[in-house]
């Protein structure tokens, strides 16, 4: 039986009906329609589902949605402004830290958590901070460079049309 609950995601309150056993990832993707976070291994191994819970990283595939009630959840959609992606995301694009893109939402969330607790990480600290996230394309070097660039604060705006964050859920409740 589903129970009524409220999830706070990227600053928006979503009234939802949750199965007590459903994972945070499934709830956010299927109930809220925020599909930026990915299901990779569904076993806390790959980090594609990474979200922030009150600012701390969590493998949302293996975390009960009910346990997130009353906490602030941040997904990759929450890292972008309305008109343009954020500086960390631009750095990923500029440093070729993205290839197929499947790991990218989780990488961005883990990198955000890292930079919050350690604003000037060393190369090794970046690799440790992101080592719960698997990437099968880039070889990681571009990702590490992107986090270095974001930490430096020197991330020029992208040329061309602004990137629109596709962050509006199908039944926006806020």
């Amino acid at each position, binding site marked *: *039986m589903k*129970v009524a609950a409220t999830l706070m995601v990227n600053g928006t309150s979503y009234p939802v009906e949750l*199965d*007590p*056993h459903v*994972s945070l990832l499934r709830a956010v993707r299927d109930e809220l329609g925020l599909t930026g976070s990915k299901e990779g291994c*569904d*076993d*806390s*191994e790959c*980090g594609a589902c*990474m979200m922030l*819970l009150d600012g*701390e*990283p*969590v*493998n949302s*595939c*293996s*975390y*009960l949605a*009910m*346990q997130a*009630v*009353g906490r602030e959840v941040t997904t990759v959609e929450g890292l972008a402004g309305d008109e343009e992606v954020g500086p960390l995301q631009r750095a990923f694009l500029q440093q070729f830290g993205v290839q197929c893109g499947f790991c990218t939402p989780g990488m961005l969330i*883990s990198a955000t*958590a*890292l930079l919050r*607790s*350690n604003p000037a*990480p*060393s190369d*090794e*600290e970046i690799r*440790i*901070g992101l*080592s*719960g*996230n698997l990437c099968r394309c880039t070889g990681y070097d571009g990702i590490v460079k992107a986090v270095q660039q974001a930490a430096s604060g020197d991330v020029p705006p992208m040329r061309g049309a602004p990137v629109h964050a596709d962050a509006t859920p199908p039944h926006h409740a806020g």
Partner: protein
Amino acid sequence: MSPSFTSASTLDDALAAVASGARPVAGGTDLVVGARQGKAPLPNDIVAIDRVEGLRALEISDAGLRLGTLVTHGDIVANADIRNRFTALADASAIVGSHATRAQGTIGGNVMNASPAMDTGGPLLCFDATVTLRSAKGERTIGLDALWTGPGKTSAAPDELLVSVDLPAPGEGTGSCYVRLEYRRQMEIAVVGATAVVVLGDGNVADARIAITALTPTIRRVPAAEKTLVGTAADADAVKAAARATAAAATPISDVRGSAEYRRAMAEVMATRAIAAALTRARGGSVPIPASPAMYGAKES
């Protein structure tokens, strides 16, 4: 019956929930993963205890260290006193899971999960940790050897919650280390692990604690190996003899992470590394903790 989920805000609420049959979840890093891997289905009735007030206190004094059950691995690594005085515990918490696991995973959940491969188990045993279990009827304090009864099994009653873990202060001249054999630094558990806590006095080993991880049904100390080391000057031969005695206590299984034969062969290697690093630290030498504490917002002291 349809599943239920409640979130307790006080310890009394949590104790009442477990007394009526609900199973507790704290950091939530093991429960869902365990269910998915077929270890145990998700409990029908779940009570979240991660927001119970007062259970995340971390107190360190001359008497020792008290970890509230909700203290996270990240909290442990970030604490300079723990890194200096209970270094093996910091070694272990620094490599549990990933940044996310360490941010969410709690010491209480780790202990009660009772995995024979858990990283913090060896250090806790070697530091003589006791755990306090509370139920609506009262509380009791027991050693970890009395708590862990088998892989994933404890002597705790279903209505008992672990509320704190206590470690007495190690004496002057103590050095400690936990090392593990692993295939990947993150999201990995020990293929083989070893812990050593040594106390040096006048250059000789006054006391020694050695424990093995993922080599026996529960993590355990190896008194025969400890005796081998005590009274020696901790030279290479003494370390080798102690490591050999440590490996002799191993009764490993074969599983996806390694064969029994491989584990037995590696037991001596890991014990040697743990003892050597603990001795180096006891002598004032530097052996860094394996993940940077700066990741957890810790300022170098």
